[in-house]
């Protein structure tokens, strides 16, 4: 940090979107200071240990008599996370868990993976292929969902005619279907009905497609957006293995956010956690005579302070100054509410509310062995990556091995006492993703939340019980399975304040849009939002200092010497690799 605490951008919140934005801005040469009011990285997408999760739940669950004046941040958190209820006893080895506040599956081809790879963050962490997707069936327990076209061919459960219909659907769903006749007039039709009427798929197959491949939360989701989503998943399949999805180690999103923050720090970003903001003085409101005016940073930089925000933090004596402020919805200081400009991105979604449950299990969910493999790939294929040939070779043995990372889908009406309209997605991660100690598993349940009269516990407990009874019945003679710890809550989309749409051109405070928190969508949506915020920020900084920024870093990168902003890209290919391997002896 400069001795004078002089920055281009102040970013508030270390959630995934903010962290990607901060990393991109730092890499583009801007000076970033990045704050979080929490003592941990990741904000609403954090990976927490079990004791941190308990504290997280308690501080949001009830008004604390010891804290009669909760911070605006805590108040906004209590609007977002509601009806929280947790087990009192925290299991042992609490610190060996990484529980995600934003459980997510990463599509193997998509905006987030692109950002991970191009920023270099991918090499900081580990990723695991989603091993299995199953559908709950009250008669057989868990039915495997075909992970690939090969699996469909191998399936014993479908007739040849069905397989042909299914393949026809997959051909269609992978294609550029916009405007073709199979879709015409059906864009708004409920997806399950569409599959049954247009592709003549029977209920069991259409349920599998809608809930286990396209991750619909209800049968009524309109066909066009679901098809577009499914196409992205289908096109992700095969990049790293059969499954389109990856699971990040240590709780995923929270760890990935930390990686982006590190990239920002490596490029000069300054990180300050756990220090509440004491005051923010917007530009022009008062001359700040006491602040030292520094001209040392760049030739042509405007004198600081009068045109900048000045921020005082608790326990940090030096003021920070910044041209613009970028904030997550939950950490936006109340004083900026009227001035902030909500950045819109292409994936703007109103955002759904979910009832959620996080439970710790001490036994794996008994998935059936994968569809029989009549010796197709065991011969080994040199083109295949090591991981996937290992997988093929050990598939037989894996049948006996507990499934570590999987999704179990409960379609609507699949469970007595469960929802008749909404699907429940159960996502499980174990030691293989470094998120739980050996032999322990984290189970995340979520259901689209509609009925505000029902508590999240009463909505989700039947599903948890069904899973526990699957586990109990698979374990001959063993004791009844129980959850070691559970927390139930409702997550609403962030309340974005009503913002003035006028004066957007002059805005210097940007509000990050709230993104979907759905299992398969949230990670990519964060990356898309970050890109939109990044370009908006660059545009404002350019307008603010047309002269100051053009010399920076541009002499060597471009011969033109012209306006560097035309060239600023979101994680451009850089000399990152050279810098990293500077000490390499090859």
């Amino acid at each position, binding site marked *: 940090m400069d001795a004078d605490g002089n920055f281009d951008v102040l970013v508030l919140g270390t959630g995934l979107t903010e962290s990607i934005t901060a990393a991109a801005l730092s890499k583009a040469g801007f000076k970033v200071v990045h704050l979080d009011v929490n003592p941990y990285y990741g904000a609403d997408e954090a990976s927490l240990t079990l004791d941190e999760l308990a504290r997280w739940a308690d501080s949001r669950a009830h008004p604390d008599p010891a804290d009669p004046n909760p911070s605006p941040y805590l108040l906004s958190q209590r609007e977002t996370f509601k009806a929280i209820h947790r087990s009192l006893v925290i299991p042992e080895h609490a610190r060996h868990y990484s529980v995600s506040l934003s459980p997510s599956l990463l599509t193997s081809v998509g905006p987030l993976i692109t950002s991970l790879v191009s920023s270099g963050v*991918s090499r900081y962490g580990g990723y695991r292929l989603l091993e299995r997707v199953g559908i709950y069936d009250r008669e057989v327990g868990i039915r495997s969902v075909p992970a690939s076209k090969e699996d469909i061919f191998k399936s014993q459960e479908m007739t040849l005619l069905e397989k042909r219909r299914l393949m026809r659907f997959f051909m269609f769903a992978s294609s550029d279907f916009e405007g073709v006749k199979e879709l015409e007039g059906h864009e708004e039709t409920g997806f399950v009905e569409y599959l049954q009427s247009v592709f003549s798929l029977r209920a069991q197959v259409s349920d599998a497609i809608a809930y286990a491949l396209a991750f619909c939360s209800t049968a009524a989701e309109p066909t066009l957006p679901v098809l577009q989503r499914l196409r992205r998943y289908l096109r992700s399949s095969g*990049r790293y293995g059969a499954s389109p999805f990856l699971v990040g180690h240590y709780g995923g999103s929270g760890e990935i956010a930390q990686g982006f923050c590190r990239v920002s720090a490596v490029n000069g970003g300054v990180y300050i956690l756990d220090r509440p903001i004491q005051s923010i003085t917007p530009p022009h409101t008062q001359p700040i005579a006491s602040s030292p005016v520094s001209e040392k940073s760049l030739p042509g930089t405007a004198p600081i302070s009068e045109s900048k925000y000045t921020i005082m933090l608790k326990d940090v004596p030096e003021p920070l100054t910044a041209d613009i402020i970028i904030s997550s919805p939950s950490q936006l200081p109340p004083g900026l509410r009227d001035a902030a400009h909500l950045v819109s991105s292409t994936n703007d979604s109103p955002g759904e509310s979910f009832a959620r449950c996080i439970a710790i299990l001490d036994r794996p969910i008994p998935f059936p062995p994968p569809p029989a493999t009549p010796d197709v790939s065991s011969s080994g294929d040199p083109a295949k*990556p090591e*991981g996937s040939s290992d997988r093929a070779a050990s598939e037989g043995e894996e049948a006996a091995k507990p499934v570590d990372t999987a999704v179990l889908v409960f379609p609507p009406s699949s469970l007595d006492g469960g929802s008749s309209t909404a699907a429940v997605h159960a996502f499980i991660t174990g030691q293989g993703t470094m998120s739980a100690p050996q032999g322990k598993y984290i189970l995340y349940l979520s259901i689209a939340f509609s009925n505000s009269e029902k508590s999240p516990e009463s909505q989700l407990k039947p599903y948890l019980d069904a899973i526990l009874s699957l586990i109990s019945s698979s374990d001959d003679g063993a004791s009844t399975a129980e959850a070691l710890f559970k927390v139930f809550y409702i997550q609403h989309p962030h309340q974005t304040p009503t913002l003035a749409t006028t004066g957007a051109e002059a805005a210097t405070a940007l509000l990050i849009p709230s993104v979907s928190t759905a299992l398969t969508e949230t990670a990519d949506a964060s990356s898309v939002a970050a890109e939109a915020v990044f370009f908006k920020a660059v545009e404002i900084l350019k307008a603010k200092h047309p002269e100051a920024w053009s010399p920076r870093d541009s002499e060597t990168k471009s011969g033109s010497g012209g306006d560097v902003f035309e060239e600023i890209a979101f994680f451009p290919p850089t000399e990152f690799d050279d810098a990293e391997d500077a000490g390499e002896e090859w």
Partner: protein
Amino acid sequence: MADAASGSAADKSVQVKLVLLGEAAVGKSSVVLRFVSNEFQANKEPTIGAAFLTQKCRLEDRVLRYEIWDTAGQERFHSLAPMYYRNAQAAVVVYDVTKATSLEKAKTWVKELQRQANPNIVIALAGNKVDLVQPSPAAGSSASESEDEADDATATPGEAPAEASDAENLRQVPREEAQAYAEEAGLLFFETSAKTGEGVVEVFTEIAKKIPLEHILASSRGAAGRPGAAGRSASQDVSLDENQSKGKDACNC
């Protein structure tokens, strides 16, 4: 050991993630710079620039490839991410022999590592800037260069200047005290000078001797070479940087 077996092991360079920890301005980056490129920069800027440096270290019949992670300044406001030291097989916790509080900070890092990091992690404690407390023949000139090593804005004013005559007085952490702590906590212990190079290479070679290489080698197999993949089955792990050109139907022909 059978020749054939050791021969094949020698071909493998074992990747080891090593993290640096310690208070700001104790010379973490300078120690690494000395190790990696045998250089020293007075007036070094606070750490900016590289995600990690790599350096091979030959040890008897094996080659270690250190992946050395610097804090990138994130320790300054106590904001170092847990991701930083997760999966590290080794850590060098640095303090400044002329600053007693830096040893206290080092102890909190050791505690954090022992609580949170890989249980097999090898930790070395390094008391840096030992050149400042050694009366040297060319004391006058060398000490006056060293004072510039207090390398960033957070350095305590007035702490660095070293007159040759009171070099011994600058020492605030007695060697015996730090060594006793290191023994008690099960750490390797060194006093180092990034400026002169004293003790620096030893830190890394002694760590290399103590690291359970067989364990790492066995567990990183199939984990796309990730250094962090210790101690578990990794057959489902993927490396995002690979397979980028792989078509979606790269099938079995």
